[in-house]
């Protein structure tokens, strides 16, 4: 079946099977920043934005998304670079496998929450697992990113 998606504001036409998940559709189309971590909604690594909202692409059927706007990290390069800058200063990036999903979730949070506190940041990002950093350096970097209005 044919589905029309706007991926990072570009119209894409995908021929998909009924059971195809968005993660596979995007990876097959070379959006390789979208990565598979657990395949069962429990790690956050495959996060993309649908209409600006973070979702687990491993568990969203592509066929249900006709006409929807999908954002991958390729669509928010400037914001990702800015966040990466602060991650770099805190040594918070380590293996980087989950960082495109982190950039997307933080970006969505910035749009959704006004002046989030450390606790609300933690609560918003709790589904984004990280085994490398111990999280704290990420939080410091994210707070600095949110303060940067440039």
């Amino acid at each position: 079946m044919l589905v029309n998606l706007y991926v990072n504001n570009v119209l894409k036409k995908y021929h998909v099977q009924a059971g195809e998940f968005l993660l596979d559709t995007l990876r097959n189309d070379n959006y390789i920043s979208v990565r598979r971590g657990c395949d069962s909604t429990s790690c956050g690594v495959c996060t993309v934005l649908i209409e600006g909202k973070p979702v687990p692409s491993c568990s969203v059927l592509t066929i249900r998304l006709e006409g929807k706007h999908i954002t991958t990290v390729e669509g928010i390069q400037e914001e990702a670079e800015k966040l990466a800058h602060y991650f770099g200063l805190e040594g918070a990036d380590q293996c980087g496998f989950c960082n495109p999903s982190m950039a997307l979730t933080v970006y969505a949070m910035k749009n959704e929450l006004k002046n989030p506190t450390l606790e609300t940041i933690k609560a918003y990002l709790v589904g984004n697992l990280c085994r490398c950093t111990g999280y704290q350096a990420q939080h410091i970097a994210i707070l600095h990113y949110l303060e940067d209005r440039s």
Partner: protein
Amino acid sequence: MKSVNVITPSVDGKGLMMGKAGYTNDYVLKNALIIKVLRSPHPFAKIVSIDDEEAKKLTGVECILSHKDFDRRPFTRAGQGYPEPSPHDKFVFDEYVRYVGDEVLCVAAIDEVTAEKALSLIKVEYEVLEPVLDFEKAMNNVSVIHPEPEIHEMFPIGFEPKKNISASYHMHIGNVEDTLKKCEVVIKESFYTQAQAHSMMEPHAVNTQFDYQNRLIIYSATQTPFHVRRIISQALNYPISKIRVIKPRVGGGFGGKQAIHGEIIASAVTIKTGKPAALVYTRKEVFESSYTRHPMRLDITVGADKDGTLKAIDCYVLSDTGAYGEHALTVFMVAGSKVLPLYNKVDSVRFHGHVVYTNHTPAGAFRGYGAIQGNFALESAVDILCNKLGMDPILFRQKNMMKENETSPIFAIMGEGTEGTAMMMETCKLDYCVKRGLELIDWNNKYPSKKINDHIVRSVGMAIAMQGSGIPYIDMGSATIKLNDDGFYNLLVGATDIGQGSDTILAQIAAEELMTSVDKMIPYSSDTDLTPFDTGAYASSTTFVSGNAVLKAAKTMKNKLIEEAANALNCAKEEIGFDGEIFNKVNSTESITLKELSNRLYYNSDQKQLMVTESYVGHKSPPPFMAGFAEIDLDTETGEVKVNKYCSVVDCGVTINPKLAKGQVEGAIVQGLGMALYEDVVYTAKGKLITNDFMSYRIPSRMETPELITEFAESNEPSGPFGAKSVGEIGIDTPPAAIMNAIYNACGVRIKSLPATPEKILMELRRKNHEQ
């Protein structure tokens, strides 16, 4: 210092966050066959027959490989130096399956759907055998997990497969039984640790292809590319000269990617079909069919005099290596060698035990291996002893622990699988670490505990720890530095960046010595065709061993540069001054810039490529030390524990990159907290792992993570590059003991089996209250 000990963003961080390709699975060719592995549903069985006729007929199935397709050539997947201290007890596929999830066969097909469909069409008949699921009953069990005649040890490691013993060991200094008899206070306790899962975010991945020279190219998410090359060559009897292993970016390893996973299977498929192939583990496979931390029982006896002088430590360890013996001996030995020297003033020590086979997921390397188990037992035992002595546990440690310029006879006796290396502690700031930690946690006002309300008690607990910096005389690192035109360098290292940032810190070391900036030192790791040898990212070796190799290479390059500058300026090299950018001839105005010199060497005069390679093998392994302090709130009505704060004070010498070093410590602390409190491993009675995904196996989320206060002691290790020791593992060691000590200080309950779930705490608490 310009580059070292300076905040420096990691070289790959920005690109990776912006979504650039980098990981193994990003380099799969579009026409690659997709491999799926059929795995055993039984913990122990013999394969009677395999009927794959239907699967073979399926369009798109390219090959099915099982034990019938391979010579019987045992090897070990452990990913260690050669000859390995692990038994050669694994075949590519075998007619026996030894745990739920063990490999039966593999299917390679044009896509994932076809491969999975093929798996479902294959019928395997098993003769189900009686499994060994309790590691305390494994030794001399009637069920022999490895009856096959071909398996062997490479040198004596106490391998007795007929008794289900993968390795065994015994050492003693003095007569521990005699000393204990004379001690005024003795305690004896048993501790249990669980099969923690690495849970790196990137699942194990490999892809393989033949290149235009018909060489086998393997992209692998590995910590040990050179070992992978050697092991594949051995296991498949394939010329090593025809194998190239490329390690791209790796999404976390923590020891889980030291050993081989799907690399052999994928290589076999490509060799058999001539086609590119890819194998990515599902998360379930990562949990069930890779490796875990070795579960252990540690029986520990410690004795002291009433004045608080520790006299003797006796430790028997029973370790469960699961179905195969990867790292069986080495992990077990580290439970002694990187723990017992902490208390170096005892009269006698004994460390002995067995590593047994069971029908569980194999155990392997995991950050802090052995040390975390041993530390949990010893540092818990010390608090128990202090309680019996009526002595302050801080004073006791300060009196008995290792100090600078001291040593322990254990260093000479115990190595990893072999004898050890005697060494003095040229740097050991443990006393500072303890003192500073006490201040940071505000120990004196909080110890042992205080009541917050009718059911919350706030308490503190602590532990000290040590690690190593590589394995002396075994771990070798090497580095190549190449000068390019315009005066920038390539730094080629076999050292394996797996996300810990080693590319960055090695570039910093080279840049520091060559007085250039990090952006002019382009690191590349690792590729067995292009980069020089390195044993790999394990045993806390990269900063110290590989870092020393890089420093040596940079020094040699500096000499060469000065020689060439002297040539260009027609003077003796002693007359050349160099600041990283400009070569000045003394007592003259003549000079040449690095840029000019490098261009001249490429294009104009006396042309040559400047490229140097140096190697380093350690003659010692200077241990990093730390003290860890936890503050917890314990709910006495529910057993729930909230960790409020964890203070770490670490002596790892000079931090090459302060923020990345902090990241190593903090990441490891949180993994240690996971082991202490959350990461429960549960099997069914029939030996199937229940906790096989992120919904049932709980690594700490950011909500459980306490405030982390991490500081480094001022320390400068003479044998380390720019004063550095390694820092990859030390952080993981203290949380189990520190948290258990805090739990005891809160409510008088001593948890001796990890993790300390609220249920265990509450049950113990109720039992204790009932007894009173």
